[in-house]
């Protein structure tokens, strides 16, 4: 038998690669049949986000992200989460500062005093990747594979602190990087439209919503609109996420606030700057009190903290509809 050399390997911990275990999970726990999954965010997070989970959110707190679900996770005081920290401004900072997360695979995350402090104090362990390496790891998980090859990341200092390997390609004989698959314990994803079963549509560009849904053991969708399954069937090419991957569907209008949902509403610059300011100051206490703990639910939050006037304004500031409907 011929051999291939493993030329280098990162030395960091990474989520265990177990495609067989994931297949068994899918067989046992995923809802293969069409069953309604409508529930509120409290129930969804209570049921499907557990202490110690590996958590992936798609997009981020400012851009079509599951912001209301992130606030609910903090409200329910989840602990020891390991975060997929790709393409992120404040979500990781919020989750770490709120005491919910203690490990992050990076990607890119909004920085500031909080992170150096968290690392120095050992409150948070960081594993080094890049955005597209993380989405590729999710893609490997979404393909039911243990790894995928890639032609970036080699030679970086991140590589040495990752779970990646540099091997000899058995076809070309040249060195090539392998990235380990991720199958997150739970994914939270915000979409434009979903039916009660979880067949969902995302309009416009995205980061890795389909990969997150296919790769994750438990999937919570928050959605701007609930549509009928007939509407889904009217344009099957628009289905980004199929129902059988989904465990919970939460109807969350303005669920991405203070972020944008392209085609539906604009971001709230004041809300964005308020969160970024807290991050750069390195103190989220005030932000968390006002935006998370002062209210019991997203509905409550929109009503008491954000207010109808603001919602009307960001809705009207989004003037572009083209391409954001089926």
């Amino acid at each position, binding site marked *: 038998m011929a051999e291939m050399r493993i030329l280098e390997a990162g030395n960091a911990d990474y989520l265990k690669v177990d495609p067989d275990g994931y297949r068994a999970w899918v067989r046992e726990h995923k809802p293969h049949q069409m069953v309604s999954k409508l529930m509120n965010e409290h129930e969804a997070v209570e049921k499907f986000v557990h202490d110690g989970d590996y958590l992936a959110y798609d*997009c981020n707190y*400012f*851009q*079509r992200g599951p912001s209301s679900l992130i606030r609910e996770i903090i409200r329910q005081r989840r602990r020891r989460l390991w975060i997929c*920290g*790709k*393409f992120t*401004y404040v979500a990781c900072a919020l989750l770490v500062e709120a005491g919910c997360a203690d490990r992050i695979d*990076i*990607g*890119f*995350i*909004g*920085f500031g005093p909080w992170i*150096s*402090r*968290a*690392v*120095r104090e050992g409150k948070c362990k*960081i594993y*080094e990747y*890049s*955005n*597209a390496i993380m*989405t*590729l790891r999710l893609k490997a998980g979404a393909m039911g594979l243990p790894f995928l090859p*890639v*032609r*970036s*990341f*080699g*030679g*970086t*200092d*991140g590589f040495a602190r990752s779970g990646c390997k*540099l091997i000899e390609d058995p076809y070309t004989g*040249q*060195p*090539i*990087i392998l990235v380990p698959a991720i199958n997150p314990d739970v994914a939270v994803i915000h979409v434009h439209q979903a039916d009660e079963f979880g067949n969902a549509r995302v309009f*416009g*560009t*995205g*980061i*890795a*919503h*389909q*990969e997150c849904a296919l790769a994750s053991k438990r999937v919570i969708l928050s959605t701007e609109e609930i549509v009928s399954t007939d509407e889904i069937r009217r344009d099957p090419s628009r289905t980004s996420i199929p129902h059988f991957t989904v465990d919970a569907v939460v109807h969350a209008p303005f669920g991405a606030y203070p972020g*944008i949902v*392209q*085609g539906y509403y*604009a*971001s709230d*610059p004041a809300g*964005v*700057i308020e969160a*970024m300011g807290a991050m750069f100051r390195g103190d989220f206490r005030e932000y968390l009190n006002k935006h998370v703990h002062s209210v019991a639910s997203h509905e409550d939050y929109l009503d008491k903290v954000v207010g109808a006037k603001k919602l009307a304004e960001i809705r009207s500031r*989004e003037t*572009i509809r083209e*391409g954001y409907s089926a």
Partner: protein
Amino acid sequence: MSTPATNFNEREHVICQVARLVEDRYIYWVGGGGEPLSTALLAKRVHAPNLQYLTEDGVVGPEALVPFDPLMTMISSRANYRALQWATMNYAADIAHLGYVDYGILNTLQVDRYGNINSTVTGKYEGGEGRRFGGPGGADTIAALAWRTILMTDQQKRKFVDRVDFISSPGFLEGPGARERHGLPPNTGPWRVYTPWAMFGYDTDCQLMLQGISPFVSVDQVLSEMSFKPKMAAQLDILHVPTEEELIVLRTQIDVAGQTTDRGRWIELRDGKYMFADQ
């Protein structure tokens, strides 16, 4: 019209430098915000109307509506307006793997003699002693897979270091052949570094080489803001200042609120010479 401007700041100057390199006939992957995105937005409005660029969210060839709300440079209806294609991050990475990305445009916290890029930590990595930053983001993919990478940064000693504190995204790594040894595609890598004061290329040993300076600084000033001595080109270009047309577009359309350009010193034309206004 291309009247040389008489009054502009460092950030405006460097954005205009890089924007002038951007052409209709190539495909660009630009860092999704700040100076890199501004160079594409400016070029498309001034001299490259058919410019095609990607950003990390998998947008292909948008006709962006500027200006943007703060941070709304991707996954955004204005930034992605009337694109040729909307996809996702892994698709953008596939396009780059295939060799379609002629140029990547990035900014960096720190760059070294081999063009390696640090956006992770300054100072010591271990134990969180250093100052921690956000990580490579999309830059690792761009720097690995684009045929040529253009870096933008400031002319400061702490930014030009002999060896970056952490290689977040690959330059030439340890030098000739190193990229290939680490699995990156051949004939790719760093091409230019632009600062408000200077323009650098690389010599055949993959080492940073000073190729041009701005009219408002001297070579000594540039070298005094580097922690190592770069290779020197046989002849140094004098970089052209922004044109009035470029500045009007930049100030009135792209960066109306000054989110990107409202930093750095001002330069003015005084007695036929460009110099710092505070000088």
